[in-house]
């Protein structure tokens, strides 16, 4: 491709419409073409204005969820030039935002090793705790395989860590039950940790635009306990929030983003095992 040809790719690059070899080729060109870098910045800025025009009102629950999540996410340091004066991501710097995967840098692989170890630990815990272990390990693998959604995986790891602690707790008690359509569920409670875990197998994916939501039952009043993500039929979720005095848990299907109170009849209602 000639230089002029490459230069006309600024538009496609600005709106992430390049892929494969063309993307690599253009990024190499971008590193040496100041005019292209400026044009990409301007066109991305323009595209951002197009985004603002599509604005929607988010569910208020989403803010709670995001605020909860950021509280456990470590922030990246500012970009600094290295000893030889070169920046760690030259293209990135020129265009403000580069490609997520690459810009994450060298710190990642180490953490992946940690995840793997955690995976084995979890597998061991689960094997002892419930026959549904395969589901959780499968889900853990799926989370760790999703390289392009690394922060989700990271959040899952924190959750899996806590989940494993509950399952392995000396005072963990399990109760299993049948859900609708042949699906099975198990709830594991550790009164000592004040946490509960819900495992399921054979639960179909939630209908489009709907999600599974977990609830604590506090003397009949339902308290939101987070969403349950199913994929491939198996799932394991740490119920959000302390068990407290609640005596049972529920599972309902809710509109995307979840609800503050159940809007449908529970598809599962399980009494916690007694201590």
């Amino acid at each position, binding site marked *: 491709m000639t230089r002029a040809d490459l230069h006309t790719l600024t538009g496609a690059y600005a709106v992430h419409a390049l892929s494969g070899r063309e993307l690599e080729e253009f990024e190499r060109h971008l590193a040496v073409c100041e005019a292209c870098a400026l044009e990409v910045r301007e066109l*991305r800025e323009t595209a951002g204005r197009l985004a603002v025009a599509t604005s929607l*009102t988010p569910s208020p629950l989403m803010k709670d969820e995001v605020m909860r999540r950021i509280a456990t996410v470590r922030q990246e340091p500012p970009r600094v030039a290295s000893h030889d004066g070169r920046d760690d991501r030259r293209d990135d710097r020129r265009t403000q935002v580069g490609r997520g995967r690459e810009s994450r840098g060298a710190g990642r692989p180490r953490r992946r090793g940690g995840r793997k170890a955690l995976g084995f630990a979890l597998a061991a815990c689960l094997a002892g705790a419930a026959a549904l272990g395969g589901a959780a390990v499968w889900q853990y693998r799926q989370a760790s395989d999703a390289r392009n959604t690394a922060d989700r995986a990271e959040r899952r790891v924190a959750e899996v860590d806590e989940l494993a602690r509950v399952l392995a707790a000396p005072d963990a008690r399990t109760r299993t039950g049948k859900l609708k359509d042949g699906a099975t569920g198990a709830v594991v409670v550790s009164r000592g940790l004040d946490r509960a875990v819900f495992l399921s197998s054979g639960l179909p994916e939630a209908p489009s635009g709907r999600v599974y939501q977990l609830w604590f039952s506090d003397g009949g009043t339902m308290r939101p306990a987070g969403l349950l993500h199913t994929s491939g039929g198996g799932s394991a979720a740490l119920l959000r929030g302390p068990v407290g005095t609640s005596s049972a848990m529920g599972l309902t299907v809710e509109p995307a983003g979840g609800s503050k109170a159940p809007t449908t009849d529970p598809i599962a209602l399980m009494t916690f095992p007694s201590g």
Partner: protein
Amino acid sequence: MREPVYIGGPAARGPALEELLHMVARGDQNAFAALYDAVCGPVLGLTRSLLRDPAQAEEVTQEVLVEVWRSAARFEPGRGSAMGWIMTLAHRRAVDRVRSAQAASDREARAALLARTPAFDEVTEQVEARLEREQVRRCMRTLTELQRQSVTLAYYRGRTYREVAELLSLPLGTVKTRLRDGLIRLRDCMGVGA
């Protein structure tokens, strides 16, 4: 529930967002909450436009906002606005999600994706119906039909320019230049500088 939201003209989100982002970079959760209120609507609108599926759009929106928290220190004010930076990040994430769904070997996933990809006419109609800000709408009208279609399919639908060429039955070179010319015309119409 999904009312379009007006977030005011450029003046209303001038330096304030950059300042908020700067505070967020220092770990200020209250500043993040204020930033969230200002950008969540547009991020959700964009991810929804790209992904169509409300649940997935919400999921990606959350990922984007957590990413903003995580990488706020990487924002460089001299290189564009905070809103532009966040929207680029959101677009990148949503496009990644669209493409990874496309690449999935699972035939069901592919079928489902195709099933919820509306016909082209429907897409443009919806996008235009949602172009709430008068300026964007006005500037979009200054584009030629080909420029507008190219920009719409690439930006709002996450198509690669090769796919756009395929969808519009046009040579690659034509789409490449229409896309760039269209964006340049929008830039000039909206008075965007970097």
